[in-house]
């Protein structure tokens, strides 16, 4: 197992309204099997031992399903590897002696809370605006009572894979949240369960996305390239189509 030396340049920011700056650190004990977040754990341990403040970064599952980790690594959301969340990224993707710049996702709608942690509650508000279905509460309904075409369930599932990490916003040159919003819409719109609110949903979520201060979409497609779940930009076209239908039906 080979040891690597990694030079880190990490964003340090004490709070939302203070100015941040980069801090340089060198780690000599990185090994290729570490995940990117484990590498940061090691750094933080060293900092704590030395009586310094560790870097705040967001994580929960560390297996690519929760969407908490959202680091911009050398200018790319979630780092160099496609279809991989930062927590699933191994240090073997870097070389001995590499320099790595780590920044938080930068967008007006994602204010920095501390260091690398940003406030992504704008996403929650987009979901709250329309990303729900209406069902009778109580005992769980019988799963097979509503038939769903295989094509529709597959379509829906492809988009349900979105973990809300915000990499699409972080990487978009315009800071647009179109991919996230479109994924949530495509997830629900084709299912019979999502049908009753279909039109209301698309209008409300698009409105909320704009209200949160995300930018316009220029179809750059960078979102699809950084998305750890491979959500396709075609969902954005689907969102626009549904928006037109909902407006006409209005």
């Amino acid at each position, binding site marked *: 197992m080979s040891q690597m030396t990694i030079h880190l*340049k990490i*964003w340090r920011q004490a709070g939302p309204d203070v100015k941040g700056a*980069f801090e340089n650190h060198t780690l000599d004990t990185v090994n290729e099997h570490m995940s990117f977040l484990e590498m940061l754990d090691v750094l933080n341990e060293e900092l704590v031992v030395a009586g310094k403040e560790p870097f705040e970064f967001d994580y929960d599952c560390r297996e690519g399903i929760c969407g908490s980790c959202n680091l*911009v690594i*050398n*200018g*790319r*959301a979630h780092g*160099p590897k*496609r279809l991989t969340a930062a927590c699933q990224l191994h240090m073997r993707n870097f070389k001995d002696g590499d320099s790595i*710049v780590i*920044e938080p996702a*930068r*967008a*007006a*709608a994602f204010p920095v809370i501390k260091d690398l942690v940003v406030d992504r509650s704008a996403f929650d508000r987009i979901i709250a605006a329309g990303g729900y279905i209406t069902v009778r509460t109580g005992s769980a309904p019988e799963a097979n009572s509503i038939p769903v075409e295989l094509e529709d369930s597959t379509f829906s599932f492809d988009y349900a894979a979105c973990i809300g990490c915000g990499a699409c916003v972080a*990487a978009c*040159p*315009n*800071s*647009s949240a*179109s991919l996230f919003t479109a994924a949530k819409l495509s997830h629900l719109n084709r299912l019979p369960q999502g049908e009753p609110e279909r*039109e209301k949903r698309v*209008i409300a979520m*698009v*409105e909320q*996305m*704009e209200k949160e*201060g*995300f*930018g*316009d*979409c*220029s*179809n*750059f*497609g*960078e979102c*699809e*390239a*950084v998305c750890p779940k491979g959500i*396709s*930009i*075609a*969902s*954005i*076209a*689907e*969102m*626009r*189509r549904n*928006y*037109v239908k*909902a*407006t006409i*039906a*209005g």
Partner: protein
Amino acid sequence: MPSLLKALSSQVGRKLLTGLTGVALIVFIVVHLVGNLTLFGPPDAFNTYAYKLHSLGPLLWIAEIGLVAVFAIHSYIGLSIWWNRRRARPQKYHVYSSKGAPSRQSLSSKTMAFTGVVMLIFIVFHVRAFKYGETTMTSIPGVDYPVKDLKALVITSFLDPVMAFAYTFVMMLLGAHLGHGIWSAMISLTLSNPQRSAAVYTAGTIIAVLLSVGFLFIPLYIYFTGGQGALIQY
């Protein structure tokens, strides 16, 4: 549900409008190109085409006003999208780079505003030179009074190297604009099948190159043949 005006000014509406106006402009330039290529047809084809177009009278004015409106809407929304990104990301990245395919960040997509603005400036000079420019008069079959000799105007204009190469340059920018533009309009307006995305992008690039080459062939051909090439009949 939102009013039509509100819907059109939403982020989705704005994008539909850039897409629709973009497609309208493509239809316009295809017609324009077909018209231009009559330069290589029978001796009177180009002037006859121009004459017929002008004799449409009020119909032509309506089309021209429509075209100006389409240009205005397209440019205004396109440039505002480009401008607004500053507000959505006040603090820039220290390092930023694209993750590569399937990203469509390219020279073409990153320079949409630049190529657009250059084209807009170009159009002002272009209209002044060819629509309102001084011409000699000539005659065409079936018309018993003199008509503008636009063919001569075009040919003498492109014998000037500055004109010929400036046009060629701008037409290359048109190709660059459409390299991203055609694909982008499809995403704005229709395409929602992930499997077709790559094919649509490639088709868009090919159409962009064809249109660009179609236009820039004319000034280059005239310049390098001194207007005496076999393709132009007098």
